[in-house]
Every structure is written in C-alpha cells, then in structure tokens.
C-alpha cells in the first residue's frame, strides 16, 4: 500500500523558467517526509511534480526521472490520471466540492470516475475513510449535509478522507495546516502520524515545529535569489536537520537567522 519515490536529476520548468533544479532524493515508503524552506524555493512545485499535477498549468513541464517503486512516472506513454490515482494530494486550502454532501465528497474519487458500487460497499468506504481521517465521530449523523458547511479543520480532514477513499500509495500534503487553528492542526498532525502506518506521506510546511513533530526525514530547499532556480540543499533525518545540520544555510534557516 505504500511506495518508494526516487527523483533522479529532476528539473522543473514553468515555460522557459527553471523553478527547481537538479533534485536527487529518495523518499522511503511508510514514512513522513517534510519539505521546508523559504517561500518561492520550489517546495510546492516539486511536490506537485510527484503526482504530475504540475503539468496542469500551461507551459509547465519536467525533465529528469521520477521513479515510483522503480517505474518512471514521466516515461513516455504514462497516463497522468493513473499516476494521480496512486498518488493522492491534499491542498493548502480545504476544497470540498460545494455541490456535494459530506458522503458524496468522500465518495467523489469513486463516483466521479464512474465506478458503480453498491450502497453497502459505499457505506463501508465512507465510514472507513472518515474514521481514517478522524472525522467519523463528528459527522456520522449529518453525512447528507453539504461538505462546505463544516468548519475549516473539519473540511481539511474531509479532504484527507476523500483522498484516502481512493486508496492511493502516496499522500502529498501541501501546507495542510496553514489555514487551520492550533486544535485542528493537532488533529491533522495526529492523523499524519497514523497515516504513515499505511502510506508514504510527503508534507510541505512553513511551520518548522510541525516538521519536527511529524516527520521522519526532512528536506531543506533554498533559492539563491529571485529568478534563480530552487535547489535541494540538505536531506537527512529530521533530528539531524534540526540539531546538527551539515550546511550553513540549513542551520541559519532552522534557527531563524535566515535573511
């Protein structure tokens, strides 16, 4: 249920602009990997290349290899839709589908793809996913209410439930707590710790305490200046990044002395 990710010499472009340069990284299965770094350094851009969401934007493309358990997802002939159903994504702002109820939101990945499932199976998927997202107790009595009626933290957990309902191998999270209050953040962080039992989790965060709390390994990205590409500076065990970084810029960033 979880897969290993290897990026080999990966370059990410927006049109002619190279946003991320020469990334080599190995992300272990059943672990939480955090990407940290200043704004604009390419963390989110790199994250979006992991499930081929990057190329949704006009002119965006990728060079290099990105292996998912040894298979290059950027090889010619690979269907991005197949990649995305293996690599789920949770976004910065909670984005439940406004036309759907809570139940329909959880089932969205199945229903939108036209899969027909019996009511009993659907109920089982809804309950399992919502329990997996620590949301079942809060919404079990109002599954037919609109998903957009939930609080921000609940909406974000609904989006996580929606993502795990399609049973991906990898879950990507793009600053999943930046729009949430501390209590909802705690709920989502607890959830991330549980998710790594089954999934490979990659999380982008601006909150270094959060990276230290939830992740096993941490990758520090940095940018040399405006218009320059972002680069992977250091990638190691989280404790090493925060306590004993090898690079000067990593130490400056995690200790808050960064420009």
């Amino acid at each position, binding site marked *: 249920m979880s897969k290993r990710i290897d990026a080999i010499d990966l370059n990410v472009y927006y049109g002619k602009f190279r946003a991320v340069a020469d990334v080599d990284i190995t992300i272990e299965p059943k672990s939480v990997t955090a990407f940290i770094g200043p704004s604009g350094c390419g963390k989110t851009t790199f994250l979006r290349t992991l*499930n081929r*969401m990057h190329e*949704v934007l*006009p002119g965006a493309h990728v060079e290099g290899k990105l292996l998912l358990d040894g298979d290059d997802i950027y090889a010619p002939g690979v269907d991005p*839709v*197949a990649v*995305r*159903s*293996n690599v*789920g*994504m949770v*976004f910065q*702002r909670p*984005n439940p*589908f*406004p*036309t759907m109820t809570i139940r329909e939101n959880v089932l*969205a*990945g199945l*229903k*939108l*793809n*036209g899969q027909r499932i019996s009511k009993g199976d659907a109920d089982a998927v809804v309950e399992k996913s919502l329990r997996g997202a620590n949301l079942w107790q809060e919404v079990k009595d*109002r599954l037919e*209410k*609109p998903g*957009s*009626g*939930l609080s921000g933290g609940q909406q974000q957990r609904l*989006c996580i439930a*929606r*993502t795990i309902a*399609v049973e991906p191998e990898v879950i990507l999270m793009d600053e999943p707590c930046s729009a949430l209050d501390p209590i909802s953040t705690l709920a989502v962080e607890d959830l991330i710790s549980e998710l790594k039992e089954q999934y490979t989790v990659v999380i982008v965060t601006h909150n270094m305490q959060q990276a230290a709390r939830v992740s096993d390994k941490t990758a520090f990205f940095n940018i040399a200046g405006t218009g320059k590409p972002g680069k992977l500076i250091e990638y190691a065990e989280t404790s090493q990044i925060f306590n004993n970084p090898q690079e000067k810029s990593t130490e400056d960033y995690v200790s808050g002395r960064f420009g």
Partner: protein
Amino acid sequence: MTTNVKTDLENKGRSRLTVGQKPRWTWAACLAGSAVVAAAVLALIGFNVAGWAVLTAVLYVASMYVSTVVLENRRKATNGLWTNLVFGAFVIALLPLVSVLWTVLSIGLPGLLAPGFLASDMLGITGAVDQQSVNEGTSVLGGVAHALVGSLLITIGATVISVPIGLLTSIYLVEYSRGGFFSKAITFFVDVMTGIPSIVAGLFAAGLMMTLVGPGTNVMGFSAVLALSVLMIPVVVRSTEEMLRVVPNELREASYALGVRKWRTILRVVIPTSISGIASGVTLAIARVIGETAPILVTAGVAIQTNWNLFQDWMMSLPVYIYRQMMFPTAPSAPDASEQRAWAAALVLIIIVMLLNLLARFIAKAFAPKKSGR
C-alpha cells in the same frame, strides 16, 4: 469636548455625541416647504402634476443642502446632496419601466380578458367581423393562439440549437484552449456577433434557407429559428464563459488529484458548480430573443392561423403579431379592435418575459451550491 454648543440641546435628551445635528424632522419640513413653494410657483404659470413633482424634487434637494450647511456643516451637506442625486437618478431610471408596465397593463388587460383571446387565432376574423363588434359594442373576437404557438416553437427551437453550441464553445474556451490563436479568434468573432443588428441575422437566415431549399419554401419557422440562434449563441457563450471562469481552480485540481479525467471533471464538478449561473444566463438569453421582431418578420413571415410545423408554411409570432395589428389593422375603418388585440399581445409578451426572469432567479437559487446547513 462640546464647549461651544448650547447646553439646552443637551437638556433635551441628546447625548454629547449627537449634539450639533439637525432635527430629525428637517427633511419633512423641507419636503412640505418645497411642495408648497412649487405649487405656488406653478399656480402662476398654470398648474400640472408632473411639473409640480419635478419642481418639488429640485427644491427639496436644494433646500436640504442649504439647511444642512446652516445647521450642520458643508461635508454633511455635500454627502446629503449626493445621496439625494443618486436616489433621484434611480427614480429617473425606474420611471420608464414603471410607465411601460403600467401602460401595457392598463390598456392590454381588457383585450387579454376578452373571451377566447388566448385560445383562438385570426382565422375567419375579417374586417367585417371587427367592424361589427366595434359598431355593436360586443367583445372583440380573434386572438393570439397562433402567435403564441409560433413564438414558443421558434424560441424553443433556437434554444435547442444555441445552448449546446454555446455551452460547448465556452467549455472549449475556458477548459481546453490555452489562449492560442484559435481561442482568440473565437472570442473576437463572438464579440462581433454580439453586436450584429438583429435584422442582419434575419436576412442571413432567410438568404441561407433560400440557397438551401429555394425561394418560396424558405419562409418557415425554422428560418426564424436559425436567425434567433445567430443572435442567441454569442449571448450564451459569453454568459456561460463567465460562469465557468468563476469556478475555483482548486476544485478542478482537487478532482484531478483524485485521479479523475478531465472530461469527467468538467462534466461532474465544473458544470454542476456553475449550473445555476449557466441556467439563469440561458433563461435571460431566451427572454432577450423572444421579443425580436425584425428577424422573424423576414424569415417566418406572417400568418393568421395556427401552424405547429416549424418546417412548413409561414408562422406568426407575438412581436410580429403586435406589429401587424398596429400597422395594418384588420378593419382599417375600425382599428380599435386590432389595437386592443395588439396591446393584449404586448401584455402576453411582457408576462412571458417576466416569467422567464422569475424562472431564471428560481433556477439560480435551486441549483446554487449549498453554503450552509451544518
């Protein structure tokens, strides 16, 4: 502090924060004063109600400004002046609408209530029949059934053609085109089409059908359907495009991230999210073309009997019916009967357009994404 303010004001139950304001009844006093002065002025040159209302309004705005300057200060007076002017502009903008509604309603209602007006066409209603009913004071015979049927059939036909084309065009523009030459060309020509005079659309459709089926047989309901489609497609493209563009990109990305294909995302996420706006835009486009006269006159022609077949024979429609009854009365020596029918038909047309507008609002509300309901 309010040292320079008379303390007796404070003693009248006013707080320190509200002193220095003009009394609440100032506006009533100004209005009454303006009305009296206006009546007096007009009495000198001959009184009439419309002039009295206009002069009262002008005097009221001026007197409010002066009294506010005197009682309060210049800033508040300027604020009040502009508030009054904006309100006045609103009333002026509303006047023609109310006036039209009132005129059509008051003149058209007797004709609409005449027995069989909605159920009968003009077959057998000759000048002699009209002459007789006017002379003998009996109710006017004949009705709009044929025009009603024609208008509805032609409009439904135009909708059936325009909505799929317009919807698919806007889906292409918003979801698939990446700002290339083709999409710019489409946008440009849609803009040009929006500005086409309706008679030109009518002549185009008439000419097209003449080359397709030959002269004589080309005058039929379907030609009018084509003419109205030419007018309707750009409106539908424009309104639908706007609605699709306001669907947040986050929803599309959320759907893609679940491994959903693009066409399914458009069909199941983007369109349901914007369906209320699309539907009300389409309804307003229908309301816009149902009142077109010139393009129908040159394509579907005129008729006196009900014709259910869009592909054969001439067909009447409400706007053309109104035009014909007004300009070419059935009985030239007794035009009252035709005029009554024309006004009643105008009332029917207005009612249909209003119902369509109400329908648009209802649709927008019924399909709108659910925001609340925890």
